[in-house]
């Protein structure tokens, strides 16, 4: 029976651990709100990985790793459309690239896919036991232990961030007296992307949606901005509180004020 579930109950790290311990062979499919990923394993070792619309064929991976030029990439793509990765690999190691270049590039890419999956905290997964591995692709054999350790660290980070930012339904606003001028800060690309949406009207959930970040990524950025004192968490719409249902036993404004004043008088008299 296929192993199925939700990442909220069983994390990617736990899945890797299970695959590693049981020395499983098969394909793990993970589907989040925005994209899909699949990872192939052979006897408990990472064999292949691909995510979303990213091209994971050998030519694309080599281009991404600067092992071939843009022109070579174009030529190989045009002429090699029908050549399988394994055949292409054999052609390339015949004088142009080494086997290490090819396997190293693939390993680097597959590991980057798995690292990206560590940031997925929700989504459905399914493990297809003994599913046929892609025969036209070059498979690697990478031990999972190091990735599992890395993933465990990420889980601890996730738990910490959840404690720091328990709800994404709050908004961020710039601090009244930020310690530093924004222009002098060394922010990364993700932080700048979030900064451009900071407004008490936008909840962090909305910002995450607009910037295509998942819950971990938006929390990570918000936390670093909060730590630096650049932003504060506020209620959506600004700091003004709002009336909730049944806050007062009466809906008449004057009666509500009178009620609060009576409470004040009573407490003063205690």
């Amino acid at each position, binding site marked *: 029976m296929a192993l199925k579930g939700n990442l909220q109950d069983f994390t990617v790290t736990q899945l890797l651990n299970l695959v590693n311990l049981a020395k499983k062979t098969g394909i793990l499919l993970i589907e989040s709100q925005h994209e899909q990923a699949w990872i192939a394993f052979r006897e408990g070792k990472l064999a292949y990985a691909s995510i979303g619309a990213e091209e994971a064929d050998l030519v694309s991976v080599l281009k991404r790793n600067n092992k071939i030029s843009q022109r070579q990439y174009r030529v190989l793509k045009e002429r090699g459309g029908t050549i399988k990765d394994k055949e292409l690999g054999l052609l390339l190691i015949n004088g142009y690239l080494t086997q290490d270049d090819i396997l190293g590039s693939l390993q680097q890419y597959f590991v980057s896919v798995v690292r990206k999956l560590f940031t997925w905290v929700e989504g459905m997964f399914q493990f297809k036991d003994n599913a046929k591995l892609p025969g036209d692709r070059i498979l690697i054999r990478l031990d999972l232990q190091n990735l599992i350790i890395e993933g465990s660290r990420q889980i601890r980070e996730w738990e910490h961030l959840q404690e720091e930012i*328990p709800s994404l339904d709050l908004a961020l606003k710039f601090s009244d007296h930020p310690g530093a001028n924004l222009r002098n800060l060394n922010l990364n690309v993700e932080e700048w992307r979030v900064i451009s949406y900071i407004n008490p009207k936008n909840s962090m959930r909305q910002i995450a949606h607009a910037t295509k970040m998942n819950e971990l990524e938006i929390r990570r950025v918000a936390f670093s901005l909060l730590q630096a004192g650049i932003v504060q968490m506020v209620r959506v719409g600004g700091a*003004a509180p709002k009336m909730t249902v*049944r*806050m007062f036993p009466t809906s008449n404004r004057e009666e509500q004020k009178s009620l*609060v004043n009576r409470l004040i008088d*009573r407490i003063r008299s*205690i």
Partner: protein
Amino acid sequence: MQTVKIVVTGPFNAGKTEFIRTVSEIDVVSTERRISSEPERIKEATTVAMDFGRITVDDDLALYLFGTPGQKRFDFMWEILSEGMLGFIVMVDSTRPETFREARRILETFRAYAPTPYLVAANKQDYKDAWEVEDMRLALRIDNNIKILPCVALDKETVKTVLLELLYTILAEMEAGNL
């Protein structure tokens, strides 16, 4: 009889039960249980569901004070208790900075549950190792427009001040048209 409620929340052992006990006209209805967990045995008993106190204003009106359980494993009670509250007080033990992070988590959670006025009470200010209130504001990252008040939960006058300041805030928000 009309009733309104204020919720007193905060981390474990912040002084919520004592706060309510100090001003309640009835014996506080408490759901305290002996503590079984060794790391939390800095006091004999803790609230597991809620504390309940009452201040009767007149024949028509009473203020109910609800204290929330401070331990994380009872946090399912928070949302229930926060429903329909007039405002809330976050009690923080000024002598235990290790609880500040938890206090902030609780504060943010309550803000998300019910966007009503609130303030922070820096409790145990009579202890010599209590943090300064303004240092606590920075550590807890409390906005300047939110009140953070010194408090001694066993002292009626400071408890009254905390309650009054919350009511003044509620009144001010009403006058400003925010409520």
